[in-house]
C-alpha cells in the first residue's frame, strides 16, 4: 500500500510538472502570436451621408429636378436630388 501511494505521489508530481510545462509553452506561443499579429481595427466602410437640401437651396433643387425630369423623360417623383455642393 505504502509503495502504491508513493508511486501515486510521484506520478502526480510528474504529471503536474508536465501540465505546467505544456501550458507555459502555450502561454509563450500565444504571446508570440499576439505580438507578431497585433489586433487592428477593421477598416470601416465609408457610409454615404444622406443630407437634406441645405436651407435656401430648395428653389435650385426644384429647378434642377424639373430640368432633369424633362431631360430624362421621367416624373420628378421617380428621383430625388438631396444636395448641391458649390465648388
Amino acid at each position, binding site marked *: *500500500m505504502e509503495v502504491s*501511494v508513493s508511486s501515486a505521489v510521484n506520478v502526480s508530481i510528474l504529471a503536474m510538472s508536465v501540465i505546467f510545462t505544456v501550458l507555459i509553452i502555450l502561454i509563450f506561443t500565444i504571446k508570440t502570436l499576439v505580438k507578431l499579429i497585433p489586433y487592428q481595427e477593421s477598416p470601416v466602410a465609408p457610409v454615404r451621408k444622406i443630407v437634406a437640401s441645405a436651407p435656401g437651396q430648395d428653389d435650385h433643387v426644384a429647378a434642377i429636378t424639373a430640368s432633369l425630369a424633362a431631360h430624362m423623360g421621367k416624373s420628378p417623383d421617380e428621383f430625388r436630388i438631396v444636395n448641391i455642393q458649390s465648388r
Partner: protein
Amino acid sequence: MEFSFGASASKIIHSTGFSELAGGDLIMIGVGCTLIYLAIRKKFEPLLLLPMGFGCLLANLPLSMMKATDSGGLLNFFYQGVQHEILPPIIFMGVGALTDFGPLLANPTTLLLGAAAQIGVYTTLIGAVYLGFNMQEAAAIGIIGGADGPTSIFIASKLAPHLLAPIAVAAYSYMSLVPLIQPPIMKLLTTEEERKIKMAQLKQISQTVKILFPIVVTFVCCLLLPGVTPLLGMFMLGNLFRESGVTQRLHETTETHLINIMTIMLALSVGSSMTADSFLRLETIKIIVLGLLAFGFATAGGLLFGKIMCKATGGKVNPLIGSAGVSAVPMAARVSQKVGADADSSNFLLMHAMGPNVAGVIGSAVAAGIFVSLFGDMTGVDTHAALAPVIGNPEPGIQAIATVVDAIKQ
C-alpha cells in the same frame, strides 16, 4: 395443436419481465428515476442526466436487451461509440465550436489557473490509490476532478471500463452541483477585499491569431502528448470551424445538431452501463466521495494559484477567477461572476473567468493525455514499432517512449 388456457397464461406470465425482476434491478430502476427527477425537477444537467437516467431505466428492465453488454441490443450499438472512443471526441468537437478563446488569448497567463486546478485530479488519484484502487482505476477516478464529462468518459472507457458508470454519474452530478460546491470554498479561501478586485478590460485579439491558435495548440500538445489527440484534436477542429469564418454550415452543425445527437447517444450508452452488478458496489460509494473531493481540491487549487497571481501582479488579478480553472464551461465562470458580484455588484468577472475556464478544458485534456501516455495501451506506439522493420526507420523517439511505458508497466 391443443390449446390449454392455463399453460398458455403461465407461458405469457413467465415471458414477461416481471418474472425476472430482481432486487438489484429495482434499486437501479430507482436510481434511474432519481436521475430523471433531478434532471426535470432540479434542472441538474438535464441534457445529460435525463437520457442517462432513462438509459439506466431501460437497461434494468429484464429481458429488454437494452444493457450495454447485451450483444445485438440497441444500446449495445450505441455503447460501441464509447468503447471505441468515438462519442467523447465528437462531443469535444461541438464544445470546441461553442468555445471562444478570445478571453484566454487576451490574457494567456490565465492558462496557469487551468493548470493549477488540475491538482484536484492528482489529489484524488492519490486518495483513490490509498483506498485500494489500482493506478489505472485511480487515474480514471482522478480525472473527475477535471470537471469535464467527455474527458472522464474517454479516460474511464480506456483505463477502467468497469468503472465507467459510477465515474460518469459522479462527474456529471458534481458538474451540475458546481454552483453549490464552489461558493463556500471560494468564500473560505478569499478575503472580502480580494473578491472586490476589479480587473482591467481585456484587449482585442486579431482574428488571424484566433485562427492560428487551434492549429498551434494541436501541433504542440498532440506532439507532446499523442494520447490526447482524439480529444484535443477534435476540440480544436471544432474551434477552427468557428473561427475560420469559411465553414459556417459545419460550425452550425457541430455546435447544435451534431453535439446534441452525440449527447443523446453518449448519455444513453452510459445509462445502459448502469446495471446492478456494475453499480451497486462499495467502489461506487468510494468514487462518489472521491469525486466530491476532486471538485473541492480542484476549486481550491485554482483559487490558491489565483491568490498567488494576485500578489504577483500587485492586486490586478481577482483570485475568484481561479476557481473557473476547473473546466465545467461555462458554469464555473458564472459562479466566479456571481461570487464577485455578491461582494461588489459593479464587479464583472465573467469574461475574465472565461480565460481560466477554457484553460481548464485544455488542462484536463492534457491531464488525460498524460494518463493515456502513462497507463494506456499505447497502441499507436505498438503499430509504429511493428512498422519500423518494414519501413526501415527505427524512430528512436517512439522507441524511447515505448521503453519508458514498458518500464512503468513492469
